[in-house]
């Protein structure tokens, strides 16, 4: 069946099977910046924003996204790039595989929580696993990024 997705502000008509998850459909449509990680709903690598909320695209039925707004990291490139400066400055990015999902979750948090504490940041990011960083650099980067945004 054909569904209509509004991906990064662009209307796309894509074919999907009723049981397919959103990751597969997005990647087949060329949005390969949506990474496929654990594919079991645990790692957060496949995160996209659906109507502004972070969801695991590997666990979301594509057919339910019919008519909805989806943001991948490419659709938030400008903000993500600003955040990336803080990540690199803190040495918080290594292989980069988790970065698209991680950055989208940070951007969603920035909109949802006006002035998060470190505990709230850690809680919000708990669903984004990173094999490389050990998380401390990421936390420093997020705090400095938010401080700069509020300055």
């Amino acid at each position, binding site marked *: 069946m054909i569904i209509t997705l509004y991906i990064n502000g662009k209307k796309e008509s894509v074919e999907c099977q009723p049981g397919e998850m959103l990751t597969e459909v997005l990647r087949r449509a060329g949005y390969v910046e949506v990474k496929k990680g654990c594919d079991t709903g645990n790692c957060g690598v496949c995160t996209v924003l659906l109507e502004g909320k972070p969801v695991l695209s590997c666990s979301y039925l594509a057919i339910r996204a019919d008519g909805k707004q989806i943001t991948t990291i490419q659709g938030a490139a400008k903000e993500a790039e600003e955040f990336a400066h803080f990540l690199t400055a803190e040495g918080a990015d290594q292989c980069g595989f988790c970065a698209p999902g991680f950055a989208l*979750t940070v951007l969603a948090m920035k909109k949802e929580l006006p002035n998060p504490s470190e505990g709230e940041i850690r809680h919000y990011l708990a*669903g984004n696993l990173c094999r490389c960083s050990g998380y401390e650099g990421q936390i420093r980067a997020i705090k400095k990024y938010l401080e700069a945004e509020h300055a």
Partner: protein
Amino acid sequence: MEILEFASPRTLDEALHLVRDRHGTAIGGAAWLRMNTKTMPLGVDLSELGLDYIREANGSIEIGAMTTYRELETSPLLEARFGALFRNTVSHIVGIQLRNIITVGGTLAGRYGFSDLNTTLCALGAKVVFYPGKIADVASFIQDGEEWPFLIEKVLLPVSARASYQQMRITANDFPIINAAAAWTGSSWRIAVGSRPAASRLCKKAMVLLGNEPYPSDEKIGQAAVAAAEELQFGSDIRASAEYRREILPALMRRALMEVRG
């Protein structure tokens, strides 16, 4: 999971017809579907039925079947009436991205052994409403099930309660190896245990032991916590042995009861 046909009903009557008369399978959050290798002849999507709400009505707090865990976690109404209970119950589950997907109705329908939420609902004395109106205790439904086919419309909670949820996990994103919830309903205690690893159960003997005393002594709480572990059956799996679960439970139950008593 392969779904051969997908229907998006716009009314509960239509959804019930598809489930009951065409043997469709109601689809909740659908987060677990990809783990399933079966073929579903007809999937019935419940996301267009307006079942996404948390509200006070008719002397209860009503939670629609398609309400997500994230909505439970951030609901001002639930926070006002139950304190941190729902936040504590669901905030350990993976991440916000998954909690924006999984639903109350999906969890209940699955009667999952590992469920955090079902234990809390049992302790609160929650009711489940099957469309078009049959009402059952959540604790009874989890224990005995319901004649198939059924369609969960919503969950009813008391308008307020003092309650606590406790759990133990090996790692943060894993299923709990054991969980416990306690609630003072205003006239009696209700306590439940889940992830045994089997599904949540009320601890009826321990509830009788606590009686209708809103502020039980430390000694009485200790006795009830031990009684809860003695009256339930525990199992062993990859996460913990039955003996370990039985050993851990009294500590969790004591914490829950003491937090509620104050």
